[in-house]
């Protein structure tokens, strides 16, 4: 590896790290706004609103995956929202109260397992049924049995994901 190439790689890594930190700070601000809104009655309003049985949240750090699954699910009649990392997924779940969440497990800022732990720990969001969507072939679902309603291995065709969402939504 040449010195110039190594320097460029290092600069890219630093930029990526800075983007992640900036992203995390943005999310901190959002979370704080959500919490403050909760003090003003937002939480009470959300409590009285039942989870939307047609609402699905798709969380994946790959934009192509989010867009494809959102397109397929919307065409099937679901109301879809997307999130690019675990913290964004929690914030979206808190606001949207989806019936089903398709959750990628490997994501920046907060991974899918910890995002699901947070969703299951919060009274407003704990009834959402979460489908783990993972590219890790050695993922041991038995260790997280209480968290996930189903586990899908990547790559899964959009039809397989749609069938899983319909099945879990009907539970």
């Amino acid at each position, binding site marked *: 590896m040449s010195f110039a190439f190594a320097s460029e790689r290092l600069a890219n890594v630093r930029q990526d790290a800075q983007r992640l930190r900036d992203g995390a700070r943005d999310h901190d601000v959002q*979370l704080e706004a959500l919490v403050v809104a*909760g003090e003003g009655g937002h939480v009470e309003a959300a409590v009285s609103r039942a989870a939307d049985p047609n609402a699905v949240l798709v969380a994946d750090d790959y934009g192509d995956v989010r867009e494809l699954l959102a397109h397929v699910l919307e065409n099937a009649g679901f109301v879809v929202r997307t999130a690019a990392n675990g913290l964004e997924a929690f914030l979206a779940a*808190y606001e949207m109260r989806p019936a089903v969440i398709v959750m990628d497990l490997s994501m920046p800022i907060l991974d899918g397992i*910890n995002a699901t*732990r947070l969703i299951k*720990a*919060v*009274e407003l969001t704990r009834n959402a049924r979460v489908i783990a969507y993972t590219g890790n072939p050695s993922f041991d679902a038995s260790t997280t049995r209480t968290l996930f309603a189903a586990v899908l291995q990547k790559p899964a065709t959009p039809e397989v994901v749609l069938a899983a969402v319909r099945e879990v939504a009907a539970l």
Partner: protein
Amino acid sequence: METVLLEMFDWHTLDRIGASELSAANRCRAGA
């Protein structure tokens, strides 16, 4: 198992978003 969450959010925030068990765990952890 929830260490990441306990490090990411303080007990006050967890309490306010309704994660009461995590909030209690973080209070214990902080010795509050």
